[in-house]
């Protein structure tokens, strides 16, 4: 089957070349059919949409006007489909907490 650069008009369509590179970072991955990065770019769009919508429900439940990192973490933990993201969410929030703690302690120096 031929190459398919013409398709992929969604927001992630621009990243098709990069997606192929990302896939090939895995040493186990060999040859990839030309249409595969196009399909995966579409799948990524659907995944992001799903993640955002579910996170936003939590944001609304908490009566927040801003979607926060903590909402996203909670979404990831509550959704079985997203459990592959647990570690990522964990390190992201602990990093944020660490950064906040540092900022607070630095503030106290200037008071």
């Amino acid at each position, binding site marked *: 089957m031929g190459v*398919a650069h013409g398709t992929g008009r969604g927001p992630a369509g621009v990243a098709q070349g990069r997606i192929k590179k990302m896939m090939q970072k895995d040493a186990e991955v060999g040859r990839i059919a030309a249409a595969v990065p196009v399909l995966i770019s579409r799948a990524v*769009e659907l995944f992001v949409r799903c993640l955002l919508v579910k996170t936003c429900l939590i944001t609304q439940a908490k009566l927040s006007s*801003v979607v926060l990192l903590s909402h996203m973490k909670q979404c990831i933990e509550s959704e079985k489909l997203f459990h*592959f*993201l647990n570690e990522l969410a964990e390190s992201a929030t602990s990093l944020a907490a660490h950064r906040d703690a540092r900022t607070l302690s630095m503030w106290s120096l200037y008071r």
Partner: protein
Amino acid sequence: MASSSGNDDDLTIPRAAINKMIKETLPNVRVANDARELVVNCCTEFIHLVSSEANEICNKSEKKTISPEHVINALESLGFGSYITEVKDVLQECKSVALKRRKASSRLENLGIPEEELLRQQQELFAKARQQQAELAQQEWLQMQQAAEQAHMAATSASAAQQAGSSQDEDDDDDI
């Protein structure tokens, strides 16, 4: 952001693409910066997850190239079966674009003329060209010959005129 920044180890979906997806999915909703950053990294995880699974399926199928079919099956087995309908639509698009491109390039190559006819036309053109070259060569040869003859004649009459020079003058005087 420099487009050539970083080495291959920092590969992610571009931030701009993520921002666009956020804007399209949640218009008029503010999303914290660190949440956006997490989305970027989640995409990377997702790509590696699907990639790995597709690769495993590919290995089991004894094929060497990861095919669209492998990707679709990977999505199913990972629990993302709800994405399959739209992903299959994209696959259809890919196939029809590829088909159009192949048709267009073969149309351009042949202009509708079958190969034997093209060959015959080519032979005709070559024969014509050879003939023209031959005629041209012959003309040049004739011209050379003529030029050589004229030169010879001119040389001969010049030397004859020199020999008979004095007697010719007396006669002329008498006539007058």
